[in-house]
């Protein structure tokens, strides 16, 4: 982290008001937020979705998304008011003096051009240096971002490198013209914890090296704690509080700020038994010719929660697909409640299908956008239990109450619900079948912390009331701590270990579990530094 002894003001945003247009009218997105940023300083902007943090970050460049406009306020960058500049004048500043690192690197690169050409394009356009010099400089940037084969990686196309590498190349791209300010907009949200650590440390070291000022936008307080000197919390387009990172973590003033890491405070006492609801034995599975599961065996105790953890590509979602029958296994067997399940979905009986339900990660795609809540929840009731008409509606309302919603939601379409409400409806749909086993595939990872906590509490309550068994697939260790009884660690299609939560989370660990656990950011601003020191020693 850089010292602020110079204290030279780089960016000053005063009383920013931004409105957005949707549904035929204007809504207030930002309601008068101030922001000061000094040279060489990193400011963290945090808040849940809809808080206006991305809009604020973009406004720092004098940019608003289509459909938004700056109503009031000044954006003084080096003394010039960006809000008053023309598009043409702003374009001279963008990409050279201020650059932007977006959340989804994969979607932000042009797939038809080589990475090197894209890395230097902004600096090249502004004719900062001859192309050859810029190329050499880019290679050095790649090196300092610890990219493998820095000499040649620029000759590749975006699809030929991994997500974490792409995110680092995007940082190199932002750094190439040596901007005075970089906006990081949730750059690591889409990455695995193990990759996140590498990207974070690379970004931090390069920002330190060139003493660039940065605004770091995220919803994860633990991440921002590693990056930022100061943190500003936004909610509903207004500032909640702002203070130095250490001060914020040790002594948050507002209740809301505390609630941002509330999930991390949920704990569940672990229990287990030898009565297995489901056990899968020596499963192999493949997509086409590529084998993705190798000899996977997992036991799920009745009425308990087993969390399957691992990074993306570890085979945890594939395991869920095998259990549901969407992907028939090539070897091994699945025993459900003492009876063998046939691998193919078509050969399972309606009763077997009813007893295993799945809840998906993205509630947006898991619900038919043209069906109302009543149809979505009512269909399984009608389909499995043959209940129709008034009785069915009563049952739907009962389920809605169970998930803490009410009958006013009956005729809503999924597009009229918030993220957390959508996921609740998906839970209700799974419950409507009256299942014995629910597979939760990353159900909370697309949600804000405070909503996550609500969903996890609901799932725990339902388990207590109804005695359902959960398989909880996630890459988020905080969630695992909050909800599970047992943990299964998977890596590259194999089970690394399975056991009680306390056993897996406490040393001694196998190497991979150690790596995974140590990569989870903690609420300590020195965590990343300490971790890197430990790993390098």
């Amino acid at each position: 982290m850089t010292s602020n002894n110079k204290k030279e003001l780089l960016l000053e945003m005063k009383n920013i008001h931004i409105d957005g247009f949707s549904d035929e009218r204007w809504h207030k997105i930002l309601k008068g937020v101030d922001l000061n940023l000094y040279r060489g300083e990193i400011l963290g902007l945090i808040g849940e979705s809809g808080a206006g943090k991305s809009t604020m970050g973009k406004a720092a460049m004098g940019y608003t998304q289509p459909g938004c406009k700056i109503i009031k306020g000044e954006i003084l960058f080096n003394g010039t008011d960006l809000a008053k500049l023309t598009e043409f004048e702003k374009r001279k500043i963008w990409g050279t003096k201020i650059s932007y690192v977006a959340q989804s690197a994969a979607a932000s690169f042009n797939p038809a051009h080589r990475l090197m050409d894209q890395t230097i394009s902004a600096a090249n356009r502004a004719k900062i240096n001859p192309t050859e010099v810029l190329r050499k400089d880019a290679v050095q940037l790649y090196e300092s971002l610890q990219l493998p084969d820095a000499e040649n990686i620029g000759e590749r196309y975006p699809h030929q490198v991994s997500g974490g590498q792409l995110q680092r190349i995007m940082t190199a791209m932002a750094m190439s013209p040596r901007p005075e300010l970089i906006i990081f907009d949730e750059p690591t949200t889409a990455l695995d914890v193990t990759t996140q650590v590498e990207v974070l440390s690379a970004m931090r070291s390069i920002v330190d090296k060139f003493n660039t000022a940065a605004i770091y936008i995220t919803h994860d307080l633990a991440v921002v704690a590693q990056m930022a000197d100061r943190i500003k919390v936004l909610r509903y387009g207004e500032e909640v509080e702002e203070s130095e990172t250490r001060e914020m973590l040790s002594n948050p003033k507002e209740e809301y700020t505390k609630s941002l890491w509330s999930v991390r405070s949920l704990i569940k006492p672990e229990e287990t038994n030898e009565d297995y609801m489901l056990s899968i034995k020596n499963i192999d599975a493949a997509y086409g010719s590529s084998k993705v599961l190798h000899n996977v065996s997992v036991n799920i105790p009745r009425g308990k929660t087993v969390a399957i953890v691992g990074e993306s590509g570890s085979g945890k979602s594939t395991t869920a697909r095998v259990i549901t029958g969407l992907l028939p296994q090539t070897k091994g067997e699945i025993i459900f409640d003492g009876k063998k399940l046939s691998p193919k979905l078509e050969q399972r009986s309606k009763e077997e299908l009813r007893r295993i339900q799945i809840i998906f990660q993205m509630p947006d795609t898991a619900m038919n956008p043209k069906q109302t809540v009543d149809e979505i929840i009512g269909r399984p009731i009608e389909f499995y239990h043959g209940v129709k008409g008034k009785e069915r509606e009563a049952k739907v309302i009962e389920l809605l109450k169970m998930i803490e919603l009410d009958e006013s939601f009956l005729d809503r379409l999924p597009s009229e619900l918030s993220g957390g409400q959508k996921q609740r409806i998906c839970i209700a749909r799974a419950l409507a079948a009256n299942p014995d086993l629910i597979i939760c595939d990353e159900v909370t990872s697309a949600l804000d912390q405070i909503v996550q906590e609500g969903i996890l509490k609901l799932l725990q309550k339902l388990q207590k009331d109804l005695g359902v068994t959960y398989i909880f697939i996630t890459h988020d260790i905080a969630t695992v701590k909050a909800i599970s009884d047992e943990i299964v660690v998977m890596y590259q299609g194999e089970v690394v270990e399975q056991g009680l939560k306390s056993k897996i989370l406490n040393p001694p660990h196998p190497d991979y579990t150690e790596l995974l656990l140590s990569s989870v950011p903690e609420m300590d601003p020195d965590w990343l530094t300490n971790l890197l020191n430990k790993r390098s020693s």
Partner: protein
Amino acid sequence: MSENTQSYSAKGEVSNITKRRTRFERIKIAFSKAPLSAWFGMIVLSIYLIAAFFAPFIAPHGEAEVFPVAYAPWGGEHLLGTDQIGRDILSRLIFASRNTLGICFLACTIALFIGTIFGIIAAIDRSYIDQILSRSIDTLMAIPVMIFTFILLSVFGPSNLNLILILGVLESTRFFRISRSVAVGQVVLEYVEVAKLRGEKLSYIIFREILPNIASPLIVEFGVRFIFIIFTVSSLSFLGLGIQPPAADWAAMVRENAILIQYAQYDITAGLTPLIPAAIIALLALAINFVIDWYLYITSGLKDDIK
């Protein structure tokens, strides 16, 4: 600012800022914002529909009623004159809307039905059935529709029923292509998987899960294809293979009265007579396009862009 975790409730969670509206309200808003071109299209279309439904009441004379004077001039008892065997042209124009619109609508509906169902089945399957269906459709598409229609019509005979069925099958290729390509994007979404996991039958998945989500491009295609079928039928009628006399048809009327163009230098109205049915076809195509453009604008989300 003092709101805290205690006051959190799932119900009160800020959902989409969209105001809830019933379907009726949404339609009303859409209509109130309809551009001039859409209104023009809707008014013209409703005139055609009224003409088609109430032809016997509107038309001054019968469809095949023959009067003693052939090629009578405009005015008097025959507002637009009579044709080569003395039938009232205005009445035939009105009756023709019935025949042309009816036949084309049925053919287009059959095409939509066949194409869409097979298209979705292919999209769900993505394997042998998809290959068989897609390659057969490719083969069918490789043969020009007009020539193939000629051949089939001469094999089965040019009756109205044959015309409808032949066009329905031949034009379904486009619906197949579109519905398959749009459905492929939907089939992989989890809500379809949820339905499969529930053990739903294929027909439920096609009609209740997928179809409502791909309806918009299909309706647009229906409008466009409808115009093309009108053109095809008109071309066939012009050549004498389409709608058979004595039933009236616009394109056939162009052909029957084409000779009158030569007399335009003596009587301009006579010269216009064969052009009126042609203009009617053109106006219909224009009206349908205007309405479709508007529909596309509403459903595609283009309207969310800032004006």
